[in-house]
């Protein structure tokens, strides 16, 4: 046996197997497959001396075409040092890719008209009751001419911190608010003109949720928004996404500001052929409370 340095697995049992228990099966790397998933199977001993199988699934992605300088390429091969030298960064999940898709949120959607409610503000707060004139300037009180942020009389108005968004605690209460320092419920704060309506709508809004099923796999939220916005103001679009593959799971929700718009969308889009599949659109079942 000593002459033959290579240990045969078949002989392990016959030899004094107890002594050879320190041997671990070799590391196995499977993949990466077409989705970029790489599976690494390793074996190690835990603190109690038991053999443990560790399966690590990692996703390999090409983030950007990087042109690296010579020095940068050399730095790639540097050894880790300091706290990183122990090498358990991966298992400690020190660096993770966000599961959430973060978009650069435009103050207004590209290509849309300037008078659309800004993405940073609550679009519901902007919409007044009963679909009357939506555009009200809070600085000069003019209806239907411009938004607060575009008010030509902005400079004349008393300075308020909350120019086009609902006031926050760090903005001093504008125009005759109660004494500073005492707590004021957000909907009672000065400047929160539409909050009562907004509150109602937000509750009602849950009922204006439209469920869309049989979506094709590569449908994304912007696509759905593009499809549904023609029927009226959309407050939320959500597409269920598989966390692992990043592919759509084939259904999503669209919330409308107004119920009529939701109904209109259902009547038009249910059975509509979209991306070689036939959409199924219905009112979403109310969320169990």
């Amino acid at each position, binding site marked *: 046996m000593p002459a033959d340095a290579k240990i045969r697995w078949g002989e392990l049992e016959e030899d004094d197997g107890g002594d050879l228990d320190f041997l671990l099966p070799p590391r196995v790397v499977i993949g990466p497959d077409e989705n970029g998933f790489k599976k690494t199977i390793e074996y190690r001993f835990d603190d109690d001396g038991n053999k443990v199988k560790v399966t690590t699934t990692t996703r390999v992605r090409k983030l950007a075409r*990087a042109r690296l300088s010579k020095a940068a390429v050399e730095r790639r091969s540097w050894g880790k040092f*300091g706290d990183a030298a122990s090498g358990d960064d991966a298992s400690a999940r020190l660096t993770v890719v966000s599961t959430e898709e973060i978009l650069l*949120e435009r103050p207004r959607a590209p290509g849309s008209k300037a008078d659309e409610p800004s993405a940073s503000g609550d679009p519901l707060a902007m919409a007044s009751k009963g679909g009357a004139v939506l555009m009200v300037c809070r600085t000069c009180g003019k209806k239907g001419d411009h938004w607060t942020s575009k008010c030509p009389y902005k400079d004349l108005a008393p300075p308020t911190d909350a120019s086009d968004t609902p006031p926050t605690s760090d903005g001093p209460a504008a125009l005759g608010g109660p004494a500073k320092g005492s707590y004021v419920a957000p909907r009672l704060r000065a400047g929160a003109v539409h909050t009562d309506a907004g509150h109602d709508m937000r509750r009602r809004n849950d009922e204006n949720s439209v469920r869309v099923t049989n979506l094709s796999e590569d449908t994304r939220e912007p696509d759905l928004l593009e499809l549904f916005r023609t029927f009226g103001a959309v407050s939320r679009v959500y597409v269920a996404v598989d966390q692992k593959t990043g592919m759509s799971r084939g259904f999503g929700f669209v919330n409308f500001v107004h119920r009529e718009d939701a109904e209109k969308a259902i009547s038009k889009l249910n059975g509509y052929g979209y991306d070689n599949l036939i959409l199924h659109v219905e009112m979403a079942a109310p969320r169990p409370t």
Partner: protein
Amino acid sequence: MRPILMKGHERPLTFLKYNRDGDLLFSCAKDHTPTVWYADNGDRLGTYRGHNGAVWSCDVSRHSTRLITGSADQTAKLWDVKTGKELFTFRFDAPARSVDLAIGDHLAVITTDSFMGNMPTAQVKRIAEDLQDQTEESALVISGITGRINRAVWGPGNRTIITAGEDATIRIWDSETGKLLKESDKEVGHQKAISSLSKSLDWSHFLTGSLDKSAKLWDARTLTLIKTYVTERPVNAVDISPTLDHVVIGGGQDAMNVTMTDRRAGKFEAKFFHKILEEEIGGVKGHFGPINALAFNPDGRSFSSGGEDGYVRLHHFDPEYFNIKM
């Protein structure tokens, strides 16, 4: 885009810095260990152990061989970037806050806070090529400023030093004599403490962020105000895009008030503005606390933000970002 979340720090981030090639990202936090990451995939390369207090800022030499850090433990330290070895310690009698290396990496300007009756100062140290020759002596000490100096950087051609801080005034000093050359206009300048300062790639202009909820773009030679970007929250961090006419501004309400309000009200977004049109391009959300540090990758294709929440978020821009039309 799907940001990469780097959770290497236990305490709020204070500063982020890319090296010139844009392949390494250095992060400083209130915990005591500055950390270096690969800027493409966010893998941790190493940490620099040795400080005994919050690390406020850092700078890296042009060839990414040396790192200098300023810490609240009243020292600034020189490090070997590759191994994490501590090379030299500059001791002060007050916490060191801002560090900046001059072109050529032979000089560094380090600011110290006011502490135990000492006035805040900005001190110029020589950085010797050979460690044997390295001394602690200051080549120049600038003092006479009231209020903390939050940032001191070298002006164009190393001829000047630009300081900005709590007294809301930007000052330009002669880097040879230490004479005050220019002071920003009180009327058009910031109204509250300046929290951050970032130079453009060609050093011709720089951007300051202030707690007065605005960021301002200044000419680095004449100190004339060029542009103002107004947001609705205090600004803690700013940076200028190296490739596009964009600036990014981050901040948020005071950390102490965060728990009292809704996350959305905190506005912990990195806001992009068009540098010339002063118009908002968009916001990138994600942090659960104010943004304390922002940095563009020198290639302009990614940026990272560090927050009070202890996370560094590394964002690689979507292709659409480069086609935004105003």
